[in-house]
């Protein structure tokens, strides 16, 4: 250990002691208030230098929600902020209602109805004078807010139920095959998520073995075992695609295989459907590099509230997405979906999706 305790404290603070030295120093620090103080002051200096020198970075979207889920603060946790908000407003309504009743003596006249009247916030019983003073308006506003919060909660619960419901041709995270319209999977077992994932990884593997100039493989594809456990061999000629989408993080990867070149002035566009009869939503155009062989692309739908029921790939002239229909749909998934509805396509604007490498 260094002869100067202040130096030792500095090396400890800056992580420059090896493990044994650090243990010895920590033991010495417990017995030496001066050393503790030196360390505490160096911690302050290090915190100040790093805070002043580091460029702040905005955390990725959803980090707080992840943290809250980890700590059990949302959905089922005892400390849900949403429930706190709801119960807070409800308590405010109860207090306001009680105050109104006491103020005008209604409770004394109808004591038996007091308990019933509190939760019925939709029809607050208040004298006209109070209505004019705004008390009734406030109650209505609070009622509306509670109703809105309740609807939000129901939507969240519905979303969660849907996310965890296993359906044929889908698995979690969402993995589905996309085949040309009319084609069905020959082997029913291929619908199993393991096989689907195996295909996706095999496609990535093939992509890695046969490097293409424009191939954009995921960053960590090298860390994944690329040997599917139970996967049928890749179809050599039939175009196919496998979207893998994690709704909780709004992160997806599309693996395309044997997609022929789009042709001059044409591009492939990806669409997502959220339910039978729902309008397909435009996600974005596939970069030109996907026009041959196997390739993969990252995408997002712009919101974790979108739960895809299917995906479509269309081939359209230029970079203007056209209505998905029988003419331009080249791949759709799951293999037996409801047909897209021509008249209800949301192709206004650039769409919510984003492409990444």
């Amino acid at each position, binding site marked *: *250990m260094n002869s100067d305790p202040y130096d030792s404290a500095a090396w400890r603070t800056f992580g420059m002691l090896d493990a044994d030295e650090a243990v010895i120093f920590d033991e010495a620090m417990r017995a030496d208030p001066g050393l503790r103080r030196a360390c505490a002051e160096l*911690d302050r200096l290090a915190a100040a*230098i790093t805070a002043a*020198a580091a460029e702040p*970075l905005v955390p990725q979207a959803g980090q707080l929600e992840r*943290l809250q889920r*980890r*700590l059990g*603060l949302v959905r089922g946790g005892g400390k849900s*902020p949403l429930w706190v908000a709801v119960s807070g407003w409800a308590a405010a309504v109860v207090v306001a209602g009680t105050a109104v009743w006491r103020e005008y003596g209604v409770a004394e006249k109808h004591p038996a109805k007091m308990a019933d009247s509190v939760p019925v916030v939709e029809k607050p019983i208040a004298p006209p004078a109070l209505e004019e003073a705004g008390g009734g308006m406030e109650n209505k506003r609070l009622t509306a807010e509670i109703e809105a919060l309740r609807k939000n909660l129901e939507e969240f619960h519905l979303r969660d139920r849907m996310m965890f419901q296993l359906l044929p041709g889908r698995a979690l995270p969402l993995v589905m095959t996309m085949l040309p319209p009319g084609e069905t999977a020959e082997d029913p077992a291929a619908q199993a998520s393991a096989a689907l994932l195996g295909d996706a990884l095999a496609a990535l593997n093939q992509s890695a073995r046969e490097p293409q100039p424009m191939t954009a493989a995921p960053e960590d594809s090298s860390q994944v075992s690329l040997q599917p456990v139970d996967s049928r061999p890749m179809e050599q000629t039939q175009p196919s695609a496998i979207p893998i989408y994690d709704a909780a993080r709004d992160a997806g990867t599309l693996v395309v295989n044997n997609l022929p070149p789009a042709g001059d002035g044409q591009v492939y566009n990806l669409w997502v459907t959220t339910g039978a009869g729902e309008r397909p939503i435009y996600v974005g155009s596939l970069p030109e590099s996907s026009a041959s062989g196997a390739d993969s692309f990252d995408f997002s739908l712009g919101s974790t509230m979108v739960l895809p029921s299917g995906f479509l790939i269309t081939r359209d002239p230029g970079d203007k997405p056209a209505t998905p229909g029988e003419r331009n749909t080249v791949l759709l998934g799951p293999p037996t979906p409801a047909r897209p509805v021509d008249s209800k396509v949301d192709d206004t604007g650039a769409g919510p999706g984003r492409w990444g490498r």
Partner: protein
Amino acid sequence: MIEAEPSPVHALPSGLCEDTTGEAAALIERMGKGDGTALAELHGMWSPVLLGISCRMLGDRREAEQVVQDTFVRMWRGSAEYDPHQSPPFVWAFVTMRALVMERLRMRRRNRLESPPDPAIQPSERRDAQKVISSADCRRLWAAMDQLDLKERACLELAAFLGFARTGIPATAGASPGTVKNHLRRALETVRNHLSRHEL
């Protein structure tokens, strides 16, 4: 370890990173009582700064995000025992995060994983780390750092960002460990003296 010349034990002047408004301490107190909204507020207030620091310490954005998450988890669990008299709130968060970063750096070394190249050799631009330290503290700090020559300042910044813990001194600074430690020693003494003279 290098034997240093005997020198008196000095402590830095107190005052840096003080929670002057008491806002952060109040949030931590609320966290200790299980208030999730306080955690959300503190996360909004500090996570960008902590992420910036951890990103520079680790050189890996994804790992840095994970470390910041883990930091807030530890803070949430330890908030009931937090004593503001022992350490200002941000310093507590910083020390918590630094311990997690060091664990990861040790793991990298154990698994012989290569660290990303360190971009922190050059002294940083001036920033006013609002919400973490006061503007007055920032000015004092930058004024003290201005007293250092380029090598001393680069060494001090690199050390604060655990640059020497990541790759070792010779690999990082291109100098012998003795030289680097001398730079650091002089830098710390200069900063300490300047901050003492200009204590608010």
